[in-house]
């Protein structure tokens, strides 16, 4: 309070950028530094203490064989990494994550674009529609998992509906069939996250000037040509960001799988994250689990770097600084 009183200037004094006397200059150089320290330090401590340190510490633990108790004595070098990569289950898990990621881009993206284009028309109740489409995104994955777990029970809601419309032949053991379970999960993921893509793209469509469409139409372009050559290119940045978020999300898939299948049956739906929790946490293999965490982290990080470098380069400036 004291220092505030001292440095407070009468309205006629020059602004701090041009201090007049020597004493004031020293104080005015010190004061911003104190203010900066006061403003930045808490956030930095929180960020370093709970984001950077845990990730760094994981790298250290991953070099040991450790059950989570007592000192770290059993140094095993990179054995944990070698073990992880040479295990069938973890290889399978990586494969499952990749399948989900690829399916997301190949199936959800066209679906989102199509829906966004349709919903972008002047329909009655459009606001309501947007809210409905977006609603599943707000529910937790835990709630989503429980809902679909109950609907997909053998002889449950989904089976009954299929039989009711004469498609009883399609009924499957949705979550118990090893060759099907991953795709069932993908449908649930799509249900939960499609609204997010649609909302992003609708916002992107708002940025496409109506004049451009009109000009294209005047030049004789068909609706399809206008969409393909005018609208889609302008949606580029939105689509690229969506792909990024979608792939990163697919690589970390956990909640839904853990609640619906625990990675089963027979590891048919194990993901990297469920594998990580299963081994690191449930079996007390903390050194090994840490190695898996580091692998998962590196995969996400490498993807993010490459994607930033090659796909997002044009957009990042906007993406990181252009919040409204």
């Amino acid at each position, binding site marked *: 309070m004291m220092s505030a009183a001292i440095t407070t200037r009468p309205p006629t004094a020059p602004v701090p950028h041009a201090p007049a006397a020597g004493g004031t200059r020293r104080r005015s150089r010190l004061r911003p530094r104190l203010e900066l320290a006061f*403003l930045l330090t808490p956030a930095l401590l929180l960020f370093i203490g709970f984001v950077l340190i845990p990730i760094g510490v*994981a790298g250290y633990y991953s070099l040991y064989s450790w059950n989570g108790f007592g000192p770290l004595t059993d140094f095993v070098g990179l054995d944990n990494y070698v073990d992880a990569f040479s295990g069938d289950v973890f290889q399978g898990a990586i494969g499952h994550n990749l399948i989900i990621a690829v399916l997301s881009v190949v199936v959800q993206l066209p679906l989102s674009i199509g829906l966004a284009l349709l919903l972008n028309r002047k*329909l009655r109740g459009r606001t309501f529609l947007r809210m409905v489409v977006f609603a599943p995104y707000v529910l937790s994955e835990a709630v989503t998992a429980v809902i679909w777990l109950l609907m997909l029970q053998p002889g449950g*809601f989904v089976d009954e509906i299929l039989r009711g419309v004469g498609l009883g032949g399609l009924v499957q053991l949705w979550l118990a069939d090893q060759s099907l379970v991953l795709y069932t999960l993908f449908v649930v993921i799509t249900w939960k996250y499609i609204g997010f893509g649609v909302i992003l793209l609708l*916002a992107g469509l708002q940025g496409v000037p109506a004049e451009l469409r009109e000009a294209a139409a005047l030049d004789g372009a068909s609706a399809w040509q206008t969409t393909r050559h005018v609208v889609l290119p302008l949606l580029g940045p939105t689509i690229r960001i969506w792909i990024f978020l979608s792939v990163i999300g697919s690589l970390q898939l956990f909640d839904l799988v853990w609640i619906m299948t625990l990675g089963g049956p027979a590891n048919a739906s194990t993901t990297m994250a469920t594998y990580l929790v299963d081994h690191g946490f449930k079996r007390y293999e903390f050194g090994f689990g840490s190695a898996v965490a580091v692998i998962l982290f590196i995969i996400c990080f490498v993807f993010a770097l490459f994607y930033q470098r090659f796909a997002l380069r044009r957009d990042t400036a906007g*993406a990181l600084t252009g919040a409204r």
Partner: protein
Amino acid sequence: MARRNTVGYLAAFAVIGMTVVPLLFVVLGGFRTTAQINSSPAGLPGPFVWDNYFEVATSVQFWRLLGNSALIAVIATTLAVVLGSMAAFALSRYAFKGREAFYTLFTLGLLFPLGVATLPLYLWLRELNLLENPLGVAIPEAAFSLPVTIVILRPFMHAIPGELEDAALLDGAAKLGFFWRILLPLSRPALITVSVLAFVTSWNFYLLPLLVFNDSTNFTLPLGVAMFQSEHTQDTAKVLAFTALSMIPALTFFVLAERRMVGGLTGSVKG
């Protein structure tokens, strides 16, 4: 034109159906008995059974889960928004060496999703004696919400005209006074957006509380829903009622804050 709009309406109905039917299944199923659900899973309630909802709504368990989730989400949001707005102010309205480096450090956090770091975080929290403690969940959630908070707030604060700051300083305000009295009130829309994002993230988070809490009296709502389902596999109707009631807070919050949420998510993409 008429034909194209018909297609639009058809698509709209299909989308509404796909989205709403599972939600209706849960809500309406809660009004039936398990025997009715088992004999006809897709049937409608008739007559309406209120017992399931009544039992859940009067159980200590449900309200405790709700309270735990709310407490953690409020702490996490407050921490993230207070510390994040201070940092965003420093990074947007002060000129100093290393400013961009600090900013890049925080934006790097966007690449470190909480899910990836959970196991090491668990070990770290155990070291700090924060297991079985709401703070053990709230503090890391706040830390992982900082990057997006700063990324949204900084450009917003940066865009507020420098003349306002000069005028405030001329009138004798200290720089921190300008932050508190003028900049923060002007940043309200962005502050609401980041609060909503941080709150929803915390509210729905599953993996970290799963590891941190062993004692089910500490559980949050997502953990509770999953636990309730696995403990009452024979009583589908009650699970449905429980799930339906647990959706209400998120959906209500969403209806109230929809604009902010959508704005926040799309704002960071628009460029």
